[in-house]
């Protein structure tokens, strides 16, 4: 009874092993991944549910959402297929290594001489000279290009067995292992890394970003301040370059600074900060800096004329009609006048042609404010340009991926593995030399585990070389 049960279990395990060890499974999984991946390129991924609802209607939306179609590359069924591929790769490799391991890891390769003697594509010719002298010349020649080269005595003659590239049989396991490493690296990244984004208006700093997949907030171990943002355009209107000057703030202290552009990120403490986008944002006037261009208008109470002039902070502006000069000294986002809040304001000094300087308060939201001073000239800040209501923000992509070096190892391994697997082969050669009357008969045959046609060409060229000069080779 017990015996039967173990037998059944053994059978069950055996067939499970066979299932995973089959290349049929590989082909089915690879093709399924290929076909299913198409869906995700036809239906845009990770859009807002409202968009999907609008596009598909309530019923189809429910069905597709249940199947995880809107985030299909992270769905359980897509990941199940990838796990299936990994298990398949590992078990296939173990299974194959069991068979080929003996061939790969051996010190004395086996040559079945009769197989070579009966080969269809073997080359045969005769040369002069004794078998002994010919075999020595050939051995010396072949050992130049074949690492392993042995002479065996065969009756009255000899057989040279030579081989190289045995290790290249490992290449394919390297490729397969690299796929597993890549997926492990991806897993590490998705478990321990994060990917988020944040928009920072110029002059401001943040320490919290929004994660891309979940939309949750994530607090960074430091703050990022955007000191400056700048975008340049080509004549065509396409953006040429956008750059952000960033400062890392730790415990309130300014640390490293860097100007980042697309393709040149700031990396700090394993966290990568990438320039990704930009835009304009509405500003809270309290947060805004001083306006860059100040448009002022001066109305003379004497002539009634209005003059528009541009002003820059700290630089004097001459007022027409000899009414003196004005220096706008600073910007006050939250101006006060006699204990009253007047909102954003510019403060300056007016120096008339005659008389002493007077302080000037220009309330940006109240153009007639300066009339209260009852001076010769009424100064106001032009409404259109006065208050900076918008400013550039820089869009940053912020990521941390501890698995990326694992992935890079996988990449390197895959390229090297593919090169070895596709373009290098395990080559074996047998040259038999037997006395034949007054001459010496030579038979050349070889086999390779890959690119058999190419190797046969090589064998043909080699036997031509060996037959030249009657076997003396030089």
């Amino acid at each position, binding site marked *: 009874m017990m015996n039967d049960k173990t037998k059944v279990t053994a059978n069950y395990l055996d067939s499970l092993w066979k299932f995973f060890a089959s*290349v049929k499974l590989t*082909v089915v999984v690879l093709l399924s991944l290929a076909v299913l991946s198409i869906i995700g390129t036809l239906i845009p991924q990770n859009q807002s549910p409202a968009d999907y609802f609008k596009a598909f209607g309530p019923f189809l939306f429910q069905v597709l959402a249940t199947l995880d179609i809107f985030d299909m590359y992270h769905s359980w069924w897509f990941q199940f297929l990838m796990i299936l591929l990994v298990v398949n790769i590992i078990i296939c490799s173990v299974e194959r290594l069991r068979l080929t391991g003996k061939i790969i890891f051996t010190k004395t390769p086996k040559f079945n001489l009769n197989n070579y003697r009966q080969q269809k594509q073997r080359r045969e010719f005769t040369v002069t000279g004794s078998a002994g002298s010919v075999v020595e010349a050939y051995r010396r020649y072949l050992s130049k290009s074949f690492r392993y080269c042995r002479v065996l005595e065969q009756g009255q003659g000899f057989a040279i067995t030579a081989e190289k590239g045995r290790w290249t049989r490992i290449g394919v396991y390297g490729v397969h292992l690299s796929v597993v490493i890549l997926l492990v690296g991806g897993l590490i990244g998705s478990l321990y890394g994060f990917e988020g984004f944040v928009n920072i208006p110029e002059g401001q700093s943040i320490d919290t970003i929004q994660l891309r997949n979940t939309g949750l907030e994530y607090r960074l171990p430091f703050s990022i301040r955007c000191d400056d943002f700048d975008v340049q355009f080509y004549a065509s209107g396409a953006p040429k370059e956008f750059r952000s000057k960033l400062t890392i703030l730790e415990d309130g202290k300014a640390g490293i600074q860097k100007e980042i552009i697309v*393709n040149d990120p700031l990396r700090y403490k394993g966290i*990568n900060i990438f320039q990704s986008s930009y835009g304009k944002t509405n500003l809270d006037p309290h947060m805004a800096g001083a306006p860059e261009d100040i448009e002022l208008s001066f109305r003379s109470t004497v002539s009634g004329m209005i003059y528009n002039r541009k002003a820059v902070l700290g630089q004097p502006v001459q007022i027409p009609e000899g009414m003196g000069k004005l220096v706008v000294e600073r910007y006050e986002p939250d101006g006060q006048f006699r204990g009253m809040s007047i909102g954003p304001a510019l403060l300056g000094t007016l120096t008339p042609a005659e008389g002493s300087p007077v302080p000037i308060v220009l309330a940006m939201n109240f153009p007639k404010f300066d009339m209260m001073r009852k001076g010769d000239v009424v100064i106001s800040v032009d409404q259109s340009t006065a208050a900076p209501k918008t400013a550039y923000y820089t869009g940053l992509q912020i990521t941390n991926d501890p698995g990326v070096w694992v992935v890079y190892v996988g990449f390197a391994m895959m390229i090297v593995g593919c090169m070895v697997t596709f373009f290098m082969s395990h080559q074996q050669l047998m040259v038999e030399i037997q006395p034949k009357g007054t001459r010496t008969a030579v038979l050349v045959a070889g086999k390779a585990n890959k690119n058999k046609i190419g190797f046969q060409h090589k064998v043909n060229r080699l036997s031509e070389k060996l037959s030249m000069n009657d076997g003396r080779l030089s």
Partner: protein
Amino acid sequence: MAYNPIILSITTFIFGLAGAMYIFSWVFHREGAGRWATGVTLFAAVGNLIGILMRWYESYQLGSGYGHAPLSNIYESLVFFAFTISVIYLVVERRYQNRIIGAFAIPLAFFALAYASFGTSSKISPLIPALKSNWLIAHVMTCFVGYAAFALAFGVSIMYLLKRGNDESAATGVIGRLPAAAFLDELTHQLIMFGFLFLTAGIITGAVWANSAWGRYWGWDPKETWSLITWFIYATLLHARLMRGWSGKRIAILSLVGFSAVMFTYFGVNLLPGLHSYGAMGQ
């Protein structure tokens, strides 16, 4: 005045002539025409290369910000594609001493360049910020060497299907002159291995670039996904051949399927939204 589009348009016609000569030589069994075709192809490949270098040089003449390796949009990639097809073909011709393959390969270079010259804009545009990276050259070159090898494998697979579609023993004349089926089968396999290596390198350089520019090496962008789909198809082909012993017709058909995936990755994806949209038509 930019000379490169003129040079490349003329090269298009030279490729057309070379392709016609290869076909003529094959159909009418004139070996002399075939030898001439090789010379004309070599001439066209050199013209193609000069066009590329000229465009590179001329981009720097247009002013600051314009200069870049000509591998940045659909026109430039098609031009490079045609060049790679012709070079890989010439290597294959030299190695296997067979000119009939030219009748199936050089027309592909001609179509690529004809589409570039007459279907897309040859205007040199300055690079957008995302493309300003040294990875651009490595990424585009590896991808298109891979694509070109797959294009040739496609041509050879068609030859195989023509050969085997007819009863081989009875086939004489035009079909009979095609190389032996076993040779075509093996050549398809060799080209696909070569293409697969470069497609792999192309996907990897793209991933490394994406990681250095956007902080993620894989984002399931449609172009990325389609290149992976293509990779899956050719990986299937290689496994089916090496492990299941598939060969001949089934491999030839998989090769055609693989190449249509390549074409979709190249052109079709631009119809879908994604990061690679700068490769879009008419840009």
